[in-house]
């Protein structure tokens, strides 16, 4: 199983490796969600859906189904 934004714990960071969508939503990239960028999980709603993330200077919320498709490289730091 690959490591994705949906696997992050609150406060945890990761680096985006790629976006694995059949059709990548352009809006996600335009908000700054690009490969190579660091992403932090700021807060998650119950059942981790939606997820509130911080990436490339932007703070925004995405649904879990989207988060599951943002693949990360190995974990950088762990608060827990």
């Amino acid at each position: 199983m690959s490591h994705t934004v949906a696997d992050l714990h609150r406060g945890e960071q990761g680096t985006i490796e790629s976006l694995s969508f059949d059709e990548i939503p352009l809006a996600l990239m335009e908000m700054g969600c690009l490969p190579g960028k660091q992403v932090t999980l700021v807060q998650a709603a119950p059942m981790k859906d939606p997820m509130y993330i911080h990436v490339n200077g932007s703070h925004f919320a995405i649904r879990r189904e989207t988060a599951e498709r943002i693949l990360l490289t190995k974990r950088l730091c762990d608060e827990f």
Partner: protein
Amino acid sequence: MSSKKINIALVGNPNTGKTSLFNQLTGMTQKVGNYPGITVDKKQGGCKLPDGTLAQITDLPGTYSINPNSLDESIVLETLLDTDSKDYPDLVVVVAEVENIKRNLFLFTQVQDLKIPAILVINMADQMERKGISIDLKKLKEALKTEIVLISARKKEGIEDLKQAIVNYQEVPREIPFQISGKIDVAYFNELKNSLKEFPLYKSWLLLTQKQEASFVSKTSRRILASFKKDPKKVKKYQHKETIYRYKFINDILKRTYLVDPSKAKDLRSRLDKVLTHRVFGYVIFTGILLLVFQSVFDWASVPMDWIDGFFSNLSKTVKHSLPEGVLTNLISEGIIPGIGGIVIFIPQIAILFLFVAILEETGYMSRVVFLMDKIMRRYGMSGKSVIPLISGTACAIPAIMATRNIAGWKDRLITILVTPFTTCSARLPVYAIIIALIIPETRVFGLFSLQGLVLMALYILGFAAALLAAYVLNKVLKVESKTFFIVEMPNYKLPSVKNIFFEVVEKTKAFVLGAGKIILAISIVLWFLASNGNRDFKNATQQVTEQFSESEISEEALDQKIASYKLEHSYIGVMGKLIEPAIAPLGYDWKIGIALISSFAAREVFVGTLSTIYSVGSDDEGTIKQRMAAEINPVTQKKRFNFPAGMSLMVFYAFAMQCMGTLAIVKKETKSWKWPMLQLVGMGLLAYVSALITFVLLK
């Protein structure tokens, strides 16, 4: 050009203070209109520049990119591409915020790529020092080949500098620092450029990447564009590459020009979000805020409402006594004045509700609500963004339905539009308020909560529950294809600006008064006419009644009242009310309430106005409407007409029925079909009738 007026468009991300800047530049000259065919607000205003020329400023909807994701964002695309439009900008002012400059520059480079003169405004510059941000303006200007103005719209700082920069806009270099053609598939983009020489390359690219064809482009051009679209995968890939290269270009510039000292960054956001978006406290706080809002609206508005009620009642009396007797005096005192009173009376409620909604949006809290509620709303086929229309719907469904335009998926949006009229709008409040006052005692529960307030809250909950239930059913039944993608920015928390909130509240209240108000006034006059004219029985009323009571001993005053009530019963409106009485009698209503129901199908609020017209025509007692309704007796049961079962049944009817012509019109406009408003009218009407019937039967 003989006219020296220049067109300026404000473009920027949401939450950058673009509207604050617009308010500062235009002040009271701003006007809100409509874009043709759709209901997106078009905000324009004038601004006098230092050299004496007049600038027309258009505040375009906030967007993160020229590529639109929703209806209002597509306005930005269209305005910037349709060169023949009268609103085509001579200059675009891109408004960025000091903390989010990177994403704002993304939009800026897109605008520049369209070869429209563009200058950059960096707002909230006053917070730079506090947040540890420093910008090398000179280098940034050179790198972006543009003029940059630092402003602080809230504090009115830098506004004059911006005006001067606008005057000098023709000196802005036309060079484009980032060009799409140089980086990706050079041959492809060169071919595109040469095939459509009359357009800037980026315009052609934007036109060909959109799902919808632009109506303002000639057929020949559209055909050429279509030939470049043959490989949609390639087009997508190039769009992604464009985004990556654009960000790379911006990152390289910002590395040299933009510095943040992390030790100075005070993180108010993360501290607040820990609580406000918490999986437990977040919901507790949101519920608390909702309760506070609704309780305040009811408490605060009741004083001015009583005052307005009394004022119009007195005015009516004064006019009737001071003007010479006649048809015109009657029209004014019994038709027009109560009609206007029926509009003015809920200005306090609408204004207070919009005040709260505006504050929640301005502070950035509303985005957190969207985050908290998305999962729940999704179960009902809506999106977290549907919460804003549903809350706004408690003021008025018309602006609420317009607020659905930022919901990306068509199915989410359609369901939200269809169920929003179930939320308790302020037009229902006067109906509820008057019935609650009549049938619910003025006691306190546990010595704390007013019972009347609790009943009102239950009605609000009933409205929301009906909306969710209807959404659930619609979600199962509707076969609408739509792809949804949910992405919601969580902006920084801000103190709300008094000026922005003022304009917001005035604009929404004005829209209600002018839009729905016209219908109410017109109906009031028609009703007055129908109530003061009638068939032969009506004309012979005096004779008939006098003959009937000639044997019995009756005072002259009582006789007059009998005549008046006989007249009302035989007026045109009485005939109409009686015609539907058999249908509504099972719900506990008489023909007088029937009249009010008929007139309410134009707009609910007319209920109160209608009854006030009916009773002021029907008797000479000039007490307020409430007293008159309380005195109504059901001739069959000899009990009060507005007793508990009938009152509850009536409130349930009003909770569910689609009785608003203004809303039907806006739904037609938004869905571009009569199918959906008709579905609302029939579906909600049936639900209202059946539920009211059940309520009455159970409580009787």
